[in-house]
């Protein structure tokens, strides 16, 4: 496999050319992409309308944000001042493509206005894990060399194997570039919906624990949550105009940082993402407290895969599980007389 940094450079050049052409031929009015972060281990979404800003676009393994978030109804991007819909080009790694397709299935976005600039994603670094392992020392600069992530500080330099310190979800990711949909995809696209097999062995040891152990582990993981909702605001699938935690008629769950309320928020958000989550890992990458929600994402994917053989955002035709039903759905979980 070619060295990662060469791959990144190659991808960066292609997306710049594609974006420049799209803008030049007036095919799109705006390009949504990533630009260099001002702080190590981060990147920043950018909205480009002028051609000369194109070289601000970058691609590296720290482009963790799911840009489809800005297309969902709450994002102000889709309409210009006069209220007309504008055409948007979007740098689409696999999960961004999945998010766009799923938002189309849920009738939230209009695919004619969207041009996906597809890329073959080579994995996103688990920035929070590296941040925690470096600890209190300051990271001045990070780069990818060969098979390793090099993290430099003023008096130290550490290397991390890329394959191990990649995001958990990226390790298992089977949809590395956006599935092709009509003519709305330029650059790297999957011709047909990929065949997904996954044994979900990474969460099997968690699942085999007893309820007590699971509860204590969940409590320990989630208890540092400060309810800042960065995970909800970074998630492309969370676009409700008024989230259930913000409703006050009725007040469903409390807004405090008592563990009951934290549990209620994370559990019900997970429940709302069943069959919709596109496993982009943005929620874990943005959490200021470094809470790793990826194992919940994996469980959601597993439930929906095993019960309904469905993977979200790969095929515009099949309806997600929660939007349909079948007479012969499995029902072993139902209680029967013994």
């Amino acid at each position, binding site marked *: 496999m070619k060295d990662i940094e060469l791959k990144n450079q190659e991808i960066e050049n292609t997306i710049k050319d594609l974006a420049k052409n799209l803008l030049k031929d007036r095919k799109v009015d705006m390009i949504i992409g990533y630009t260099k*972060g001002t702080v190590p281990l981060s990147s920043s979404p950018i909205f480009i309308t002028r051609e000369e800003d194109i070289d601000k676009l970058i691609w590296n393994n720290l482009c963790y944000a799911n840009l489809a978030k800005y297309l969902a109804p709450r994002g102000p991007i889709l309409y210009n001042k006069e209220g007309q819909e504008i055409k948007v080009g979007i740098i689409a790694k696999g999960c961004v493509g999945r998010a766009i397709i799923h938002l189309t299935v849920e009738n939230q976005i209009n695919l004619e206005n969207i041009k996906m600039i597809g890329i073959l994603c080579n994995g996103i670094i688990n920035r929070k894990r590296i941040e925690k392992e470096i600890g209190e020392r300051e990271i001045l600069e990070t780069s990818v060399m060969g098979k390793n992530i090099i993290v430099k500080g003023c008096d130290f330099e550490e290397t991390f194997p890329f394959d191990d310190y990649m995001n958990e979800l990226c390790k298992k990711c089977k949809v590395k570039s956006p599935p092709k949909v009509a003519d709305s995809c330029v650059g790297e696209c999957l011709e047909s919906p990929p065949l997904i097999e996954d044994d979900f062995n990474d969460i099997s040891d968690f699942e085999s624990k007893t309820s007590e152990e699971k509860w204590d582990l969940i409590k320990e993981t989630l208890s540092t949550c400060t309810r800042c909702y960065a995970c909800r605001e970074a998630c492309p699938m969370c676009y409700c105009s008024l989230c259930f935690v913000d409703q006050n008629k009725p007040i469903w769950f409390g807004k*405090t*940082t*008592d563990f009951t309320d934290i549990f209620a928020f994370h559990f019900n958000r997970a429940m709302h993402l069943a069959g919709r989550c596109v496993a982009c890992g943005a929620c874990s*990458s943005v959490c200021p407290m470094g809470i790793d929600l990826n194992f919940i994402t994996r469980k959601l994917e597993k439930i929906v895969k095993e019960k309904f053989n469905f993977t979200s955002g790969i095929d515009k035709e099949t309806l997600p599980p929660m939007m349909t039903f079948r007479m012969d759905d499995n029902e072993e979980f139902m209680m029967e007389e013994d």
Partner: protein
Amino acid sequence: MQEMILMKDQVAKLFTELSEEYNVFAPIKDNGYIAYRKITNVEEIEFDYFNSKIPPKEILFPQMEVLFEYKTDGKNVIEIEDRKDLDEKNLLFGIRPCDAHSFVLLEQFFAFGNYQDEIFLKKKENSIIVGIGCNSPKSTCFCTSVNGYPFQKDDMDIFLVDLGDKYLVEAVSDKGRELIQRFAWLSKASKADVKKGQELAKKAEDLITTKLDLTNTSECLESNFSNKIWEEISENCLGCGSCSFLCPTCTCFDVIDENAQYENRGRRIRIWDTCQFCLYTLHTSGHNPRNSSIERCRNRVLHKFSYYPINYGLIGCVGCGRCIQACPVNNDLREIIKKINNIKTKEEENIIA
């Protein structure tokens, strides 16, 4: 007052004497990050740390705090109990100068006007701040741009300097001086120690790379309220609460009632709130004066760099850099300030439509 020396292995001794009288809060490692918690034994303390993720503000102004408790007869309130735990003495160990300065800003805010927030003020009254100078500030720190510096000690009661195997101890306030006199076993600091302290101070100050010129930022902000620059600044903002919940000077809170209805009692609590949330200024009629991320990002910056200077004569930011590190889309406050500073054209030209 003469600087003293506290050997690092004597900290345990110091701690046992203090913990009878004070609740001692110190930096510990919690889930991979540093946090200030009440400690029970000295082993928990993390000595080699930069700064906490959530600022020590959460000790005196916690994210969830009881305003009062009440008893009911099933339908109506029959009795309201005020808080009784405000007289406990707290000792905040290992506070960085920027966070110590944030307590001054918080106190200024909570004491302003003809209504004082007694809860915060009493707790601040009964707390002793033992601060430590920053030997290695980070690139995101800009305390020198907001009238602070890595070894600023005037907002603390006792100031420590980490000399490697020992601390240089200096009492700053009377509270601090009176506390130090109690530990006769502290040895006097030698000239060399004091000199080393000053060198560390100088070295730390040079480590700060970020220089922001805030001289006329306040006027610039005031005259550019509806400048188009705010659209660009808030363009990729997601509207989450990370920047405010990790900010040592954010004071906004929401008030909620919690009932244990089967026990006929309840409590009114306050929890942290942020101007970035949609409910923050939403009127019951549905009207929302700050409806999108443009107004909300603007309000956060204006509040700290324009309203605070106008109302209290202090810049509402201590330059700790936590919001820069925490922002999910890396909306860097330093970039925002630079953009505001070099707004050339007057406000009229590019108005937000």
